[in-house]
C-alpha cells in the first residue's frame, strides 16, 4: 500500500517536472523564433534578389513587385511573423528556396543522414573517451597519462575540418581505402545502394567526428576519477590491499559513470557543430551541409527551420541528461528539485 502511494507521488513529481520542461521548451522556441526572425528581417539582403539570383537581368521590376506581394513582403514584420509562426504550428515550415521542396521534408531526410553519422561518432567517442580517461587516471603522471592528456589538449585546439582533411589525404587519397566523399557511391541507382556502401562512406566522417569528441569526455573522466581516487574510501580500499583496475572498477567507475554519461548527452551542441564541419569536408549530404548551403544561398525558410530544429536537438540532449540525474542518482531523487 505504502509503496503504491509513493510510486504515485513520484510519478506526480516527475510529471510536473516534465511539464515544466515542456513549458520551458515552448518559451525557448518562441523566443528563439522571434529573435532570429527580427535579426533576419534586419538583414541587408533582399530576399527577392536572393531568390532570383542569376536571373536578375530577365526579371522586370513589375515581376519583382509581384514576387514581393506574393510572399507578403509588403506586410509589416509583425504580421509576417504571425503568419509564419501560425504556419509552423500547423506543421508547415515553408518551402526551401534552394531545394524547392517543403522545409520539413529537407530537414527530415537530411537529419537521417546526420543522425547516423552523429550516433556512430557519439557512441564511439563516449566509450573510447571513457576508457582513455580511466587509463589516464590509473597511470597519473606516467607516459599513458601524458600521452592521453597531450592528445586531448591538442585535439581541442584542432579544427574538426582539418582532421577530416588529414584523414582524407591519408586514407582516401594515399591509401585509397575509403571513398573521397558523399554518402553513397556516385552513379549508382538509389535502389541498388547497399548497406555496406553506406557504411563504407560513413567510416571516415564518423571517425573524424569521434576523434574530436573524445577529448572533453576523456579529460572529464580523468579529472573526476582522480578526485574519487584521492578520497578516503579509496584510501581505505587500498589499505585493505585492493589495487589496479579492479579497484577502479569497484570504487571509481560507479562514481564517475553517471556524470560522464550526462556530459555526453549535454555535448549535443558541439556534436552538431562538428557534424556541420565534417559533412562539409566529406560532401556528406546531412543537415550540417544543408545549414551551410542555406546560409550561403540565403535560404531563409530552411535556415529558420534548422535553427529551431537544432535547438530542439540540443534541448533533447540536455533533457535526457537532467532526467538521468533525476532517475538514477539516489541523492537527487531524495533531494527534490536540485
Amino acid at each position, binding site marked *: 500500500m505504502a509503496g503504491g502511494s509513493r510510486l504515485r507521488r513520484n510519478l506526480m513529481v516527475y510529471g510536473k517536472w516534465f511539464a515544466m520542461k515542456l513549458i520551458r521548451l515552448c518559451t525557448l522556441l518562441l523566443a*528563439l523564433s522571434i529573435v532570429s526572425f527580427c535579426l533576419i528581417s534586419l*538583414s541587408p539582403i533582399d530576399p527577392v534578389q536572393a531568390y532570383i539570383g542569376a536571373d536578375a537581368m530577365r526579371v522586370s521590376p513589375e515581376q519583382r513587385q509581384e514576387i514581393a506581394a506574393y510572399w507578403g513582403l509588403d506586410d509589416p514584420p509583425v504580421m509576417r511573423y504571425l503568419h509564419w509562426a501560425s504556419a509552423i504550428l500547423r506543421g508547415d515550415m515553408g518551402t526551401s528556396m534552394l531545394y524547392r521542396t517543403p522545409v520539413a521534408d529537407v530537414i527530415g531526410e537530411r537529419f537521417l543522414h546526420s543522425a547516423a553519422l552523429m550516433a556512430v561518432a557519439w557512441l564511439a567517442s563516449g566509450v573510447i573517451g571513457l576508457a582513455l580517461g580511466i587509463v589516464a587516471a590509473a597511470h597519473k603522471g606516467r607516459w599513458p597519462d601524458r600521452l592521453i592528456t597531450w592528445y586531448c589538449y591538442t585535439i581541442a585546439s584542432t579544427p574538426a575540418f*582539418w582532421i577530416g582533411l588529414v584523414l582524407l*589525404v591519408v586514407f582516401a587519397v594515399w591509401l585509397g581505402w575509403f571513398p573521397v566523399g558523399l554518402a553513397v557511391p556516385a552513379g549508382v541507382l538509389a535502389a541498388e545502394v547497399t548497406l555496406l556502401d553506406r557504411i563504407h562512406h560513413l567510416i571516415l566522417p564518423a571517425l573524424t567526428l569521434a576523434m574530436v569528441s573524445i577529448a572533453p569526455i576523456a579529460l572529464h573522466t580523468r579529472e573526476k576519477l582522480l578526485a574519487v581516487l584521492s578520497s578516503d574510501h579509496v584510501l581505505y580500499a587500498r589499505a585493505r590491499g585492493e589495487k589496479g583496475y579492479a579497484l577502479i572498477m569497484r570504487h571509481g567507475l560507479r562514481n564517475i559513470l553517471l556524470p560522464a554519461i550526462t556530459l555526453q548527452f549535454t555535448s549535443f*551542441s558541439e556534436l552538431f557543430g562538428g557534424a556541420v564541419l565534417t559533412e562539409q*569536408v566529406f560532401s556528406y549530404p546531412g543537415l550540417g551541409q544543408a545549414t*551551410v548551403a542555406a546560409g*550561403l544561398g540565403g535560404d531563409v525558410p530552411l535556415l529558420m527551420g534548422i*535553427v529551431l530544429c537544432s535547438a530542439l536537438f540540443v534541448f533533447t540532449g540536455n533533457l535526457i541528461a537532467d532526467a538521468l540525474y533525476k532517475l538514477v542518482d539516489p541523492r537527487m531523487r531524495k533531494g527534490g528539485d536540485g
Partner: protein
Amino acid sequence: MRRSIPPGADRSRNRPLNLRRSTLLIIAGTALMLLAILIIGLLIDEQSLVTQPQLRNQAPSPSHWFGTDWLGRDMFARTMKGLLLSIRVGLFGAVASTLLALTFGLLAATGGKRVDRFISWLIDLFLSVPHLVTLIMIAYISGGGLRGIVIGIALTHWPSLARVLRAEAMQIRQAEYVRISERFGKSRFWIARHHVLPHLLPQLMVGFLLLFPHAILHEAAITFLGLGLSPHQPAIGIILNESMRYLSTGMWWLAIFPGISLIIVVRLFGMLGERLGMLLDPRRAHE
C-alpha cells in the same frame, strides 16, 4: 606503514626550477612565440602574395617552406597572413564577448532577482542553439565580411564566461564586508564597481585568454565554410577550403602546414591562458 626513502629521492636540490618559475618561463616563452608570429605576419608585405605562374604547385623547399599553390603563391606568406587575420579576429571577438560577459555577469549578480532571472534566461537562449549554426546565421544576416564574423563570435562566446563571472560575483556579494557596505547605504553600482569588479579581474583576464583559442577556431571554421570573407583574402579557413580541391592531386602541403600552424597558435594561446590562470588563482597554484 613506513616508507624507506631511497638515496637521491630528495630531488628538490638538483631540480633547477620550482613550479612557479617554470610557469613564469612557459608564460614568457609562449608570449614571445606569439609575438614572433605577429611580427612575421606584419613584416610580410603584399609583394610575397602575388601570383607567380612559373612557380606553380611546388612542394616544400628551402625557398618556399610551405610550398606554393596552383597560382604560384608562397604558402608560408599566405599562412602567416592568415594567422595574423585569425589573431586579429580572435582579439576583437574575445574582447567584445568578454565585455558582454562582464556586463551581464555583474548585472545578474548585483541587479536584483528579476534581472538575474532574465540574464540566466538569456544565457540559456544563446546556449540553446549550436554555436556554428548561430555563427552561420549571423554571417548570413550581416551579409558577409569581417564584421559578421566578429559579431558572431562575440555573441556566441559570452554566455559561458558570463555564467562563471555571475557565480563568482554572487559569492562575493554574500561576503560580510559587502553586506556591511550595503548597510552603510552604498549603492548597488558603487558596490559592483568597488567591491565586486576588482575580484573579478583575474577571472576576467584568464577567461579572456581562454576565449581566444575558441574564437580563432570558430573564425577558421566559418571562413572554411565560405561564409565570411571573399576568397582572395588570406584566411586559414579559406586556404584550407581551397586546398580541398587539390588534395586528390597529391598536393598535401596545401592543407597540412597551414593547419599545423593554426593548431600551434591556438595551443600557445591555450597554454598562456592556462598558466596565467594557475599563477593568478592561489587554489590552483600547486598543480
